[in-house]
């Protein structure tokens, strides 16, 4: 792998016009990635999902160079018809379209040629990989006191002929004071055997609201990692909802730094897994000042040999008195070979806090099935009704009515 990596990296540096500073930044990140490689189970954060092994067994040899000079054509992309929305389309890691047609143009600034100069300590080698290989990235700034009229849908797509390859993308968002942004991530893959690496950075200024809904419903054989870094100032709210289902492997990592008083973070997720799919949600909610709140709810329905992992961490610093932190996970295992791993972590240094966690897993209740069947429903219908009922309270946590209905439709939850 190392040989290929070096060749691809050199190609990348040569073929795109980076400044010396950018080159230096990329080189440092590249060296770091070379040193660490893909995360493996020796790392606590990755002990249930050995990405190094997962890539080896599902993809094999990866190539890292993407020739963006040829136009990234999408064969087909099904857009959402159910609701009006702004669009951002990413194909093979490159942004091919940004369209805020429903919004006031002077309220949104889109900077397409961003590059990072400062070198921060990264949380894992995948961010290094992203920094080393992603092209220039895009930064979207929502101007003070503006709430977007329509949600922004980010379509993540891959070309049919892009196989055995790694794609990296990064978007930064800045929500200025008193703004509201809804982002829906939709994954529509036309390729197989790719490793897709996504990195979002959100800066939430005072009283801003971010709602991010990630919908991975299309069945595909790709391996994905998505990292959301959210920095929150006073009175800001972040809501993250993840529907984790279609990909072969998907790890969603959410890092929220609650650094302003009365800021709050909500992370809710559904694992709806079949076959041998293996998905994970890893959250780090860092309560750094007084009076902050976090709430997490994750529910899983696991068929066949699927595997779900939820590692939820609540960190409370010594200054963060009056913290309110909560996390709960429930799983239904529909087969003897399915697996649910939960690792709640509470690290608390303040003494006046309210933090709790809970986790349960079990099978579908046969008595409930019998009850429903005795009323004329067949086994399949009874099972579906029970599962939808089980998942409903996570869906009900979605605060945006329009998007809640879209997700209910996608999941076939009837009312």
């Amino acid at each position: 792998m190392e040989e290929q990596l070096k060749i691809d990296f050199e190609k990348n540096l040569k073929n795109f016009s980076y400044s010396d500073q950018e080159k230096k930044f990329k080189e440092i990140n590249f060296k770091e990635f070379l040193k660490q490689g893909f995360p493996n189970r020796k790392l606590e954060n990755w002990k249930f999902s050995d990405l190094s092994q997962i890539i080896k067994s599902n993809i094999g040899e990866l190539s890292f160079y993407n020739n963006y000079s040829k136009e990234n054509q999408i064969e087909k992309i099904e857009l959402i018809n159910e609701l009006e929305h702004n669009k951002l389309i990413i194909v093979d890691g490159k942004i091919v379209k940004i369209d805020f047609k429903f919004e006031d143009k002077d309220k949104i600034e889109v900077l397409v040629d961003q590059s990072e100069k400062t070198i921060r300590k990264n949380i894992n080698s995948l961010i290094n990989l992203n920094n080393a290989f992603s092209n220039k990235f895009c930064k979207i700034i929502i101007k003070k006191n503006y709430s977007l009229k329509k949600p922004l849908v980010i379509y993540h797509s891959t070309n049919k002929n892009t196989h055995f390859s790694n794609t990296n993308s990064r978007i930064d968002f800045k929500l200025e004071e008193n703004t509201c942004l809804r982002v829906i991530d939709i994954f529509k893959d036309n390729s197989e055997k790719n490793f897709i690496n996504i990195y979002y950075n959100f800066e939430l200024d005072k009283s801003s609201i971010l709602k991010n809904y990630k919908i991975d419903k299309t069945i595909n054989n790709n391996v994905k990692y998505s990292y959301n870094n959210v920095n929150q100032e006073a009175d800001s709210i972040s809501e993250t909802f993840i529907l984790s289902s279609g990909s072969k492997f998907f790890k969603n990592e959410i890092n929220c730094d609650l650094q302003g008083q009365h800021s709050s973070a909500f992370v809710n997720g559904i694992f709806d897994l079949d076959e041998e799919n293996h998905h994970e949600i890893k959250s780090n909610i860092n309560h750094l000042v007084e009076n902050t709140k976090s709430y997490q709810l994750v529910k899983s329905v696991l068929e066949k040999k699927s595997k779900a992992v939820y590692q939820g961490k609540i960190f409370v610093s010594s200054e963060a008195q009056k913290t309110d932190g909560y996390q709960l996970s429930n799983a239904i295992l529909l087969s003897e070979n399915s697996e649910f791993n939960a690792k709640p972590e509470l690290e608390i240094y303040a003494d006046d806090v309210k933090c709790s966690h809970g986790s349960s897993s079990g099978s579908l209740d046969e008595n409930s099935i019998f009850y429903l069947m005795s009323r004329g429903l067949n086994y399949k219908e009874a099972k579906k009704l029970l599962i939808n009922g089980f998942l409903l309270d996570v869906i009900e946590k979605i605060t945006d009515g329009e998007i809640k209905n879209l997700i209910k439709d996608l999941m076939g939850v009837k009312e």
Partner: protein
Amino acid sequence: MLKISNLSAKIDNKSILQDFKLEINPGEVHAIMGPNGSGKSTLSNILSGKKGYEVTGEVMFENNDLFSLETEERAHKGIFLAFQYPLEIPGVNTNVFLKTSLNAIKKARGEKELDAIQFLKLVKEKAKELKFDEEKLGRQLNVGFSGGEKKKNEILQMSILNPKLSILDETDSGLDIDALKTVADGVNALRKKNNSFLIITHYQRLLEYIKPDFVHVLMNGKIIKSGGPELALELEEKGYEKIN
């Protein structure tokens, strides 16, 4: 309508019903009384198709071999069990459940399914008759319902599905006297020429309001005595031990 011959049932090699015989004709109301552990609930579970029992013998329901039918097919043919302990089903709206159930049965019978408006009209009418709080229809099925409300909900389901044979498994337990009357009214309203009932109970209290045609005493998995409504009164007076 229902003919049970030589029915024996075991669970984990423990014999529960032995050589059980019973015949119910259209329009008849039969009551089965018996002490705890006599096999009453097993009988209702077997008739409605619960898995986990080793069964021998024969049960015919309107020319159908009951054991060849799945649980839901028995419901389609017109068998209804009012549960002793109705289950709480979180996340499933009561109205949605009732409509799904009614339409599943109608579909299986080749009848026209009800649309939302027709269904709401029907359910409102039935809820009113049974003094069932309409607001509860919008809630999750049996979640947070009191014991009495759960039982009333069973009777509401029964009157909406309009089954040919209704089995009431200790529907009277946990009901106060007003609720008991309402439940009895619900049953009596359904008591038409062809609808039959099998009422399973400990006490004769319910039978004051629903007059049975026949009373059977079940002990140790067998019917030891059958008679008219007067048998229930005799039981109440003497107790199960002395009746034999």
